[in-house]
């Protein structure tokens, strides 16, 4: 290096980012893990009773609301997976038909631009028990339909799922559409020549070819489900009762409303572990993808 400053400037320029990573991420995570072992309530305490270090975790898994949260996490995950299926169907149809592609893309993707609070507000209003869609459905004679899902604990979660699918289906459609377009166009004509049925073509050729796209979508979806917070606040506030609690909501509730720091920290640590479990396949998948493309090139 001829210019002396060149050697130091890059290192100096990386200082802020390095500091942020060390303090705001790594330090903060360790801090929260430490707090989860203490008896902290409203204010942090830094003494750990080593004979009873797991007490917050014990309390956590005895807490009904937490168990509901975990259950809802799975329900929400499975329900939101419909967005991937829906997104794929939309993408496949748009890709085959081609007419009106940009119009449909625009319509299916616009929910993504809107805040989840707005999405929640809109669906909360549609599900309104007195004046909402139910009233309309009853007025046209279908009085046996229950459309005020958010008012009942058994169905409230389905309302949340519907709103999340509405919000995110377009995003998966965009990913799937990109995946479909990258498929060699000769496959379509080859399939036609061989007389392969359309259904068979998709289930046995196209979908297996797109498995990487599907796995990517699944991982992104799971990460989104763990982070689900805004939509719960806007639609149900965790209610009725505690029927729509999810871990993200539970943790923040424990911290800000109940002022229970050690307890909330324990919940956050479990959230981190769940994320790590989802994250691991992503790393493996990337490594696998890497090796495959490496072998090809």
């Amino acid at each position, binding site marked *: 290096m001829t*210019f002396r400053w*060149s050697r130091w*400037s*890059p290192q100096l320029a990386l200082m*802020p*980012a390095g500091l942020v*990573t060390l303090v*705001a*991420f*790594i330090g*903060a*995570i360790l801090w929260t893990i430490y707090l989860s072992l203490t008896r902290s309530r409203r204010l942090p305490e830094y003494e750990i009773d080593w004979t009873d270090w797991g007490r917050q975790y014990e309390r956590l898994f005895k807490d009904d609301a937490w168990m509901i949260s975990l259950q809802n996490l799975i329900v929400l995950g499975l329900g939101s997976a419909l967005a991937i299926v829906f997104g794929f169907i939309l993408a496949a*149809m*748009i890709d*085959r*038909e081609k*007419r009106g592609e940009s119009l449909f893309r*625009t*319509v*299916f993707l616009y*929910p*993504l*631009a*809107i*805040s989840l*609070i*707005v999405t929640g*507000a*809109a669906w*909360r*209003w*549609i599900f309104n028990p*007195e004046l909402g*869609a139910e*009233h*309309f459905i009853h007025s046209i004679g279908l009085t046996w339909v229950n459309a005020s899902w958010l008012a009942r604990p058994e169905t409230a979660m389905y309302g949340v799922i519907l709103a999340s699918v*509405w919000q995110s289906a*377009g995003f998966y459609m*965009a*990913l799937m559409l990109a995946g479909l377009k*990258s498929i060699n*166009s000769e496959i379509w004509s080859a399939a036609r020549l061989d007389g392969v049925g359309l259904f068979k073509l998709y289930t046995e050729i196209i979908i297996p070819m797109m498995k990487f*796209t599907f796995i*990517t979508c699944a991982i992104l979806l799971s*990460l*989104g489900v763990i*982070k689900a*917070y805004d939509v719960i606040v*806007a639609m149900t506030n965790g209610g009725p009762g505690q029927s729509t609690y999810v871990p*993200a909501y539970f*943790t923040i509730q424990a911290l800000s409303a109940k002022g229970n720091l050690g307890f*909330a*920290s324990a919940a*956050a*640590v479990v959230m981190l572990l769940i*994320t790590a479990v989802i*994250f691991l396949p992503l790393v493996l998948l*990337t490594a696998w*993808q*890497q090796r495959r493309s490496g072998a090809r090139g």
Partner: protein
Amino acid sequence: MTDLTATQKALGAEVAVRSAPYFPRKKKAITGRSIAVLAFLAICALFFCIPLYVVITTSFKTMDQIREGAMFALPNVWTLEAWDHAWNTACSGTRCEGLKVGFWNSVSILIPSLVLSIGLSIVTGYALALWNVKWAGPFLFVLFICAFVPFQIIMFPLISMTATLKVYGSIWGVAIIHAVLAMPVLTLIFRNYYKDIPQEIMSAAVMDSGSFWKIFFEIILPMSGNILIVVLILQITSIWNDYLIGVTFGGLGAQPMTVNLANLITISTGTVRYNDNMAAALLTAIPPLVIYFFVGKLFVQGITAGAIKG
């Protein structure tokens, strides 16, 4: 750290690169199957439009008409009353000054957040991509992991830190947290963009006695137009739509518009004015929607590149 590149490619580049060969389609008669497909797509499009339709019509109705319960009917009398209420007098908590407070808070949060988050990550991405720095690989890997960390696990420490720095509850507190949380993903986006710059250009620039900052401002920044606009749009929409950071770090004085809206719609006392609520929801949604309808393509590129941000 090529594995990061692969993931970014998988997540980001897929949509950006649409390499389908274009064949001029022969004019063919519309088939029965086409009609069925188009009909299905149209029904789905209708499903996607229903909430927007309901929100828009409700916001122009009077409360009297809303009480009749015909949700999907058009307004009898089109009135801007609800919009006026939502903007000027709607209550958020105990303050009844409308959403305009939150709107201006959101605007003043947006600007420093954009400057801080993009400034921090563009320099970091540039240094990591084009300069030989020690630990660049491990650092990138750590950033990749940080991009996935759930907010809840760093929430309390960040509150304590901002309180110690005396920025908790202010515009700057919210802006700093936006910059911190966006840093990993944005750095990876910038780094992936810059790493494709040929090494020869860099060697020539260094030979030309270009310093780190000189090269950045004279060579790199002028050629980052594409990526900057994508990141800018990604950040504008995600900062505007953010609720969690705003409600956690905004205190009472720096609540963005989404927080006001959430307070308004979850209020449980008194008679609920649904038309006000829907007008407020629309007011909050308009800025990102305008961006979406004007530069939708760039928006989608940004959202896919930043997908891991969740």
